[in-house]
């Protein structure tokens, strides 16, 4: 009877989303406790679903008692369970940072829970139109959250995202409409069978898939249509960027993977060279352009935003390759990249919160001031490059190997091309990560306090004789990093950042590294999904 968990997992955050506003009439601070309780409950439910899937079950639930294909079906298989686990963990962990960094106010938490509910729905639904509805729930709450810090620039970035995102969702709906015209069903599995009958060469079916890819591509932000994404990530409040960057595009990429393989199947992809070829070219351009643009940025949030463009390019490329190893890479990278971006944006947010600096040149030698925060960011950034052992390495490795395999199996030069592009992009990633490491660890040579003594601002632990020298510091050409007024202090930790969030950041880093050792386990986890797809 664990199947009932599926609708409950979606209902908990959505129903809880009404509470902050309702309770807000009476209590001013009702939002955070409600959100914390709801996401904790979701995490528990997600853990139960994952445990059940791990035993080899395929959970499914017919909503309202209407059997599919007429009713809406909720499904959990290894792929959706993995993404669900990521959604639950990240949404719970982000709340820790939201508590200190804001945005505050009960309506914010309602939006936050709506976003979490929408993401949960996207991962669990087995119905194409239901997926559209959840896509839009995620979209609308994301637009609202991005604009939550009340600055004009964030409202403009959000509106830009709204227009582009809505076009994307509408194109997806149009694609679903075409597929509906061709088959008369909306259930994913039923449509899979019906599409095979209609024929994969049918123009209506091809147009349908092309529109779905274009629509979800807009939402994922692959290269030529990525322009909304860096602005939205940079302008959003730090805590919002943390959850949006790690989950929203990931959910759209999951939707693309799901629709490509569960609805349209490998045979369809193999039969439509024009579409997969275009996807490969676009994603190749996305991988390169994203990395190059990221290397040109000095605002950390913008840098990692462009890096997302490149990483999602890899996932889309792996989807288009339609190769078992590459698909495993796509699934691993989907979850791994979400985790890495969560940690990176959380780290950047913590530095901005404690030290008021979010540009590379303002962060000279920050590793001396905040060794744990800077160290975590450094490890996560190296994982993003793909240095083993890390989850970033695993995803890239499988995608690269899959690309080469598909070429060797007679797939033409496209696979080798993608492998080369991934390699070049890795070099660019290394270049901006190296710049970050240099700035964090080596840029402070010659600054006051450069003798191994802790450079502590007034009020810190043991700041006896450095206080006098702090006044001269601004004259040095690279500015000293100093904590903002009222930055939290923790005994025993030099970092002037909120301790609970720091613990979350360190934990995320450790998980990202630990997953790097779990390559075999991950391959085994996704194996049922892969064998089903490539049966």
């Amino acid at each position: 009877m664990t199947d009932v968990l599926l609708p409950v997992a979606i209902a908990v955050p959505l129903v809880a989303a009404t509470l902050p506003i309702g309770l807000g009439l009476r209590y001013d601070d009702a939002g955070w406790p409600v959100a914390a309780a709801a996401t904790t409950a979701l995490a528990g439910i997600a853990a139960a679903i994952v445990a059940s899937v791990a035993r080899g079950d395929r959970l499914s639930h017919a909503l309202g008692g209407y059997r599919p294909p007429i009713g809406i079906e909720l499904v959990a298989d290894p792929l959706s369970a993995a993404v669900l686990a990521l959604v639950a963990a990240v949404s719970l962990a982000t709340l820790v940072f939201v508590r200190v960094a804001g945005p505050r106010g009960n309506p914010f938490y309602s939006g936050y829970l709506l976003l979490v509910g929408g993401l949960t729905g996207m991962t669990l639904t087995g119905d194409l139109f239901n997926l559209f509805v959840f896509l839009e729930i995620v979209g609308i709450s994301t637009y609202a959250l991005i604009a939550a810090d009340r600055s004009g620039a964030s409202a403009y970035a959000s509106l830009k995202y709204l227009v582009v995102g809505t076009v994307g969702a509408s194109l997806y709906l149009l694609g679903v409409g075409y597929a509906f015209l061709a088959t008369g069903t909306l259930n994913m599995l039923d449509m899979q069978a019906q599409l095979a009958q209609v024929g994969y060469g049918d123009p209506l079916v091809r147009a349908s898939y092309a529109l779905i890819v274009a629509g979800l591509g807009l939402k994922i932000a692959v290269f030529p249509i990525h322009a909304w994404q860096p602005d939205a990530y940079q302008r959003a409040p730090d805590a919002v960027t943390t959850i949006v960057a790690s989950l929203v595009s990931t959910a759209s990429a999951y939707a693309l993977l799901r629709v490509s393989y569960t609805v349209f199947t490998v045979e369809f992809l193999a039969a439509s060279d024009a579409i997969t070829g275009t996807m490969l070219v676009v994603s190749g351009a996305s991988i390169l352009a994203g990395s190059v643009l990221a290397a040109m940025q000095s605002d950390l949030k913008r840098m990692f935003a462009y890096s997302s463009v490149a990483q999602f390019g890899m996932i889309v490329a792996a989807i288009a390759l339609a190769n078992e190893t590459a698909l495993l890479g796509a699934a691993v990278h989907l979850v791994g990249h979400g985790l890495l971006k969560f940690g990176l944006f959380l780290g950047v947010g913590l530095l901005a919160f404690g030290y008021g600096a979010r540009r590379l040149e303002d962060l000279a030698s920050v590793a001396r001031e905040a060794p744990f925060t800077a160290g975590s960011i450094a490890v996560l950034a190296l994982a993003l490059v793909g240095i083993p052992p890390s989850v970033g390495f695993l995803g890239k490795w499988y995608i690269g190997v899959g690309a080469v395999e598909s070429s060797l199996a007679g797939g033409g030069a496209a696979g080798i091309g993608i492998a080369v592009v991934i390699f070049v992009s890795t070099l660019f990633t290394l270049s901006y990560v190296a710049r970050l490491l240099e700035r964090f660890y080596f840029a402070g040579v010659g600054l006051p306090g450069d003798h191994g003594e802790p450079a502590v601002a007034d009020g810190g632990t043991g700041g006896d004789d450095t206080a006098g020298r702090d006044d001269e510091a601004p004259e040095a050409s690279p500015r000293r990093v100093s904590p903002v007024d009222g930055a939290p202090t923790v005994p025993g930790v030099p970092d002037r950042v909120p301790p609970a969030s720091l613990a979350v950041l360190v934990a995320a880093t450790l998980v990202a590294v630990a997953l790097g050792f779990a390559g075999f386990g991950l391959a085994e986890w996704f194996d049922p999904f892969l064998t089903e797809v490539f049966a």
Partner: protein
Amino acid sequence: MTTAGLASIASATVAATGAGPVEILTTRHAYVAFALLLCIGLYMMIANPNLVKKIVGLNLFQTAIFLLFITSGYVEGGAIPIVPSGGVETGTYVSPLPHVLVLTAIVVGVSLTAVGLALCIRIYDEYGTLRTDVLRELLRDEGSIPEGPDLREGPSNVPDGLGGESDD
């Protein structure tokens, strides 16, 4: 010219569906309208510098898709799909599914429009304009890529000055 092009798109759709060419041929003009609305909406979103008009274009774009669903659900002489209990199921009925989908999509569209207009109000309050070209200039002045330590002062100072100007 363009109408002919769109008509050929529509006829391609007709040829592609194949399932019921007679029904589709009689309602072909609806497909032309769908393609026209889609293109007009997209063009408005891209070409018009006014943010509110972009949202109007977005609505046109969505309406076009609603029209496609409605048209696809139309059956010549079809009855409302309500069969009285104990009655006999005879004659043609219209599939209710496309209508339900459009209803849901309309609700989604309305909420999107509401969020979009709310954001427009915020932008207008802050900058006193809704034109993207002017906005882009203002954002550049305010420091879209801000330099150095005035990062936090910049955004709060500039809008105040602008508010004063727009009042004059």
